[in-house]
């Protein structure tokens, strides 16, 4: 019974937001030209999804996100794992890493554009630079979360290096690493869209920016709604993986 209340409350909250979206422009709280009612957005979105040019932009953005994430995830995990395993290396590179986590990466976007142009590479690299600095610390934290005594015990049972990684490290690190990867995906999407809005010839970000400039609110909100649905689904799927691994691989046995 208690478990169902949050589910219901969440559903009601989302429904309330959607109803407010529909009602606010209709009762005159906001001008319909600034925020068109939801019911007028849905047909526009339906139309966009049948428009080859829009689908090409969508595919281009998805491709950038996929490429960026497929490169940055293993790279950042490897770097984080290395730093987590090597106390010395972490002492050398840790402060610089912390500094880079704090710096807003958007200030480097003009540099990326100068160096890499406004094509796919620039957006992929910019998105990677965002995701990299959240995945690395999570991988370091994941390595540090493995109890040393557990590693010693596994050595006494005869575990070699790769057996240790497979049987102890991987499951023990999974919950923290998956949490970091989830944030990494979110930042990759953000980075690609942001870079597209800043300077690009293709992609959803560029379309949203252009519609905003032209005041084409129905198309703008239709695209925003689509991105909200896509990223929320992606986030929910990764959250589910994370929760599963947390319930299965949590290191504290008292749950």
């Amino acid at each position: 019974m208690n478990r169902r209340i949050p589910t219901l409350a969440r559903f009601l909250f989302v429904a309330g937001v959607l109803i407010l979206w529909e009602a606010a422009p209709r009762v005159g709280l906001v001008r319909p030209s600034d925020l068109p009612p939801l019911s007028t957005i849905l047909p526009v979105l339906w139309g966009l999804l049948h428009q080859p040019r829009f689908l090409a932009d969508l595919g281009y953005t998805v491709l950038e996100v996929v490429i960026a994430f497929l490169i940055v995830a293993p790279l950042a995990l490897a770097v984080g794992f290395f730093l987590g395993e090597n106390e010395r290396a972490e002492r050398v590179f840790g402060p610089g890493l912390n500094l880079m986590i704090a710096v807003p990466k958007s200030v480097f976007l003009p540099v990326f554009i100068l160096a890499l142009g406004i094509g796919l590479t620039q957006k992929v690299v910019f998105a990677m630079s965002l995701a990299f600095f959240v995945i690395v610390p999570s991988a370091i934290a994941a390595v540090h979360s493995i109890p040393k005594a557990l590693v010693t015990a596994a050595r006494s049972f005869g575990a070699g290096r790769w057996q240790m990684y497979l049987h102890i490290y991987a499951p023990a690190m999974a919950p923290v690493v998956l949490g970091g990867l989830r944030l990494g995906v979110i930042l990759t999407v953000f980075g690609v869209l942001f870079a597209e809005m800043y300077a690009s010839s293709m992609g959803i970000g560029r379309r949203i920016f252009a519609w905003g400039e032209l005041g084409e609110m129905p198309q703008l909100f239709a695209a925003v709604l689509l991105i909200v649905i896509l990223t929320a689904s992606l986030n929910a799927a990764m959250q589910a993986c994370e929760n599963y691994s947390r319930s299965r691989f949590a290191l504290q046995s008292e749950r």
Partner: protein
Amino acid sequence: MRDEVRRVPEIIVSDAVSRSFGSFVAIDNVSLTVREGQFITIVGPSGCGKSTLLQILGGLVAPSSGEVLIDGEKLNGPRPDKIGMVFQEPLLLPWKTAAENVEFPLLLRHVSAKERRERSLALLDLVGLAASVGRYPHQLSGGMKQRVAIARGLVQHPRIVLMDEPFAALDEQTRSRMWGELLRIWERTHATILFVTHGLLEAIYLADTVLVMGTDPGRIIARIDVPLPRPRTYEMVGSAEAGRLRNQIWELVASGQ
């Protein structure tokens, strides 16, 4: 009786073993000989290097000088085929069941699933956990978890079992019950057991011989044979003989600090 003991082979020989960490001498020139089938306990003040000594004998820490011979063979690293280890914490993998935890050392050696399961079931039965085979660590009490850890330490049929304060985290009642269980297992398996503890009565109750360590640097300062007959009973803990030994060891521990 003495002459009989002499003929039993020496299974662990520590020859002038020392270990330093930086300028800190954790273990200084420890020589000891353990014969097959003996139950040896090691006591000493905290920080005397008891655990370090056990880790050296288990091949987990390399000595800075001197050498350890197991079965006459120089020890160069963990020997899971000969040495089983049980630690102060159960250190079970929370994502594995009791049986899977016991099987873990066999899994590492690529033993077939069928044989793994047979051996883990036999050992969980031995430690009295036949009914908890499929349970996860968080579903087990502290005493049950430590029994799983003991079963895991025994699963490769090691001839030597090194135990590092395995009952320290248990409550008094569970601990005294575990003493009886451990002695029963020891008699069944004929294993040689080295058992580190800071409980003097525990050390006396379990052992043939108690090794007393002194601190700074960690070294062995006395070797006390326990003349209590076997099988041991819990009443012996309160006997005059045990009390006398306890006082003797207590004074040694106090003087070794």
